[in-house]
């Protein structure tokens, strides 16, 4: 048996523990809610956490392209980025997986089994954390971009309304005749 088989065998207990550890970073009422309500729409945060850690765990076992982790990390980090978390807290849930795996496999690890495989898994998790940090920054930049766009759109509408700006019309609108630039080339 290799580490991957063992992780697969203990998958449900590892995921449960990982999930519990993640939601424990919220106040007790909230973590109970995230844990107890399984409706995708009534409890989108708890549901997303659960989906994401399942997905990430599967991908970790299969190994491979970091691109495949992206949608999962994106889903969870997007949420963390608008909640009351610092950047480090937002990505810390990945490091918690190391702790959970070590605890779950305590006996096996005491027997010095799977040391190399474990090191490789943990390196993979470290790489995920770096990716997660990039995504966190993208989310925060997006929030500020949205804020800036709101202000910019408002300003532009005001300028337009005050006849202070005159936009170039879209495409060839306003040009009655076909020109070299607008004619359709057949064949």
């Amino acid at each position, binding site marked *: 048996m290799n580490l991957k088989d063992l992780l697969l065998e203990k998958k449900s207990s590892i995921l449960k523990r990982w999930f519990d550890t993640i939601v424990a970073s919220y106040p007790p*009422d909230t973590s109970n809610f995230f844990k107890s309500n399984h409706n995708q729409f009534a*409890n989108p945060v708890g549901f997303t956490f659960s989906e994401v850690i399942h997905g990430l765990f599967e991908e970790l076992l299969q190994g491979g392209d970091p691109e495949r982790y992206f949608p999962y990390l994106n889903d969870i980090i997007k949420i963390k980025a*608008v909640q009351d978390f610092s950047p480090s807290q937002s990505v810390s849930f990945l490091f918690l997986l190391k702790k959970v795996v070590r605890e779950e496999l305590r006996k096996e690890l005491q027997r010095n089994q799977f040391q190399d495989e474990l090191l490789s898994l943990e390196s993979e998790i470290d790489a995920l954390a770096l990716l997660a940090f990039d995504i966190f920054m993208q989310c925060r930049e997006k929030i500020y971009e*949205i804020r800036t766009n709101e202000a910019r759109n408002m300003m532009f509408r005001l300028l337009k309304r005050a006849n202070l700006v005159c936009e170039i019309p879209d495409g060839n609108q306003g040009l009655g005749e076909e020109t070299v630039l607008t004619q359709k080339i057949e064949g």
Partner: protein
Amino acid sequence: MANPKPEELIRINHVPPKQAWMDTRPDFRPGMFCYASKAKSLEYVGMPNPRQWSVKDEDWHLPENWQEIFIEGLRERVDKYRSFRLFLDICVRCGACADKCHFYIGGGDPKNMPVLRAELLRSVYRKYCTTSGRIMGKIAGARELTIDVLKEIWYYAYQCTECRRCSLFCPYGIDTAEITILARELLNLLGLNIDWIAGPVANCYRTGNHLGLQPHTIKDSFDMFIDDLETITGIKVSPTFNRKGAEILVVIPSGSMFADPGTFTTMGELLLFHELGLDYTWSTFASEGGDFGFFTTNEMAKRLHSKIYAEAKRLKVKWILGGECGHMWRVWHQYHNTWFGPVDYLEEPVSPITGTRFENAKSNKTVHITEFTADLIKNGKLNLDPKRNDNLIVTYHDSCNTSRGMGLLEEPRFIINNVCNNFYEMPENTIREQTFCCGSGSGLNASENMEQRLRGGLPRANAVRHVHKKYGVNMLACICAIDRAVLPPLMDYWVPGVAVTGVHEMVGNALIMKGERKRTTNLRGEPLPGMEGEEDV
């Protein structure tokens, strides 16, 4: 301090401190609150204690007797509004509402559980208005009104959009939104409003609309619509303004005269009214259906709302047709009759096109535009080509105020199903009466509180994302001006690829008009399905 070692840096305590909620001070996080009201806005409408202050400052420059003002105000309102006293008294903290608030679901802050948010004020009520609270204090759930408590009430009263989703689940029928409404009213006694509400209130009082659009600006806006519509349809619509003797006064939210995509909804309405040959007028004075006074105090709500009727009386119209707006309808449906009773100088609305009598509007003489249009379609009065909207895969967001606040559920859906071919509902527990708020209602649609808006809108966006993935939904329809303003950024963050539209924009696109030229673009100037590359035909 020496630089921390790597192992110290990663030592993060993930468990929040165990403190009783009464002892947790509010942490004013940037992105989670709106800027403080300006003195000039409050002064203009005669609100008490106008001054410059800042939320992040330790000193809010409160009047010396602020406690007395707040407590007296609380006592006065408890005596005046039986419902308020009842809502404060009868909650058994069963928790049915706890996980129904979009801010709590999306953010996880326990003080956004409606029960606990109400408890912030309830604890003060117990202390100063009940014998048990006065004597037993904390044991009876009562607490002193300290400066921190006041700040906490402020912080969370402006983290509730008064959407009333929680009240739907309360076995006692407690309307927690009413508690927020009165908490804000009490805070206003101390000049503690937010700029995004106080500014529009002052504007509305002065110029008749939240944006401060003056009559000539409104006229200019419509001139732009008229030009654009002529380019698109070949038809020159000719709306009138402040015309005495018109049959109908049309009142819409001012956002739809100014901000995209609301402007396209207004353009759709202009086409519809022109095609019907409706005898109607716009007013440049009653130029706001919305009522930010409703987010301030009962008196201010009434004061701003009354202009619509003053104008209807002045213009001698028969009845009022109200546009696609959210809280405007809550005010009309739930408060208007209490304030003014039946209006005797207007007539019971009858559609001049179908002859349908709108008995539901017998008292306030105001018809919702989706009721009006649904009736037209039902009676076969409109020539519609839903294929023109074939590029849209649509879902519908029930605005809180029109769905929970007035029960308007079927009409918008009926219209959508007649003007487009691809319509998919979001999951059952996220629509109709159970709809999730956009996260920015009740005057919280400022920019500085973007994190708050994005987390509050998470449950709504999550449901949109579901139908976006499952059916390819690319258009979110709604009938509220705040929705049209705030859902685009919400989609941009959570569900890129989904745009936002008013229902009457789609009506305008589908409407086949007498004498129109072959349409190649929709009201946004984008090519109609199958017309790509033919914009200049």
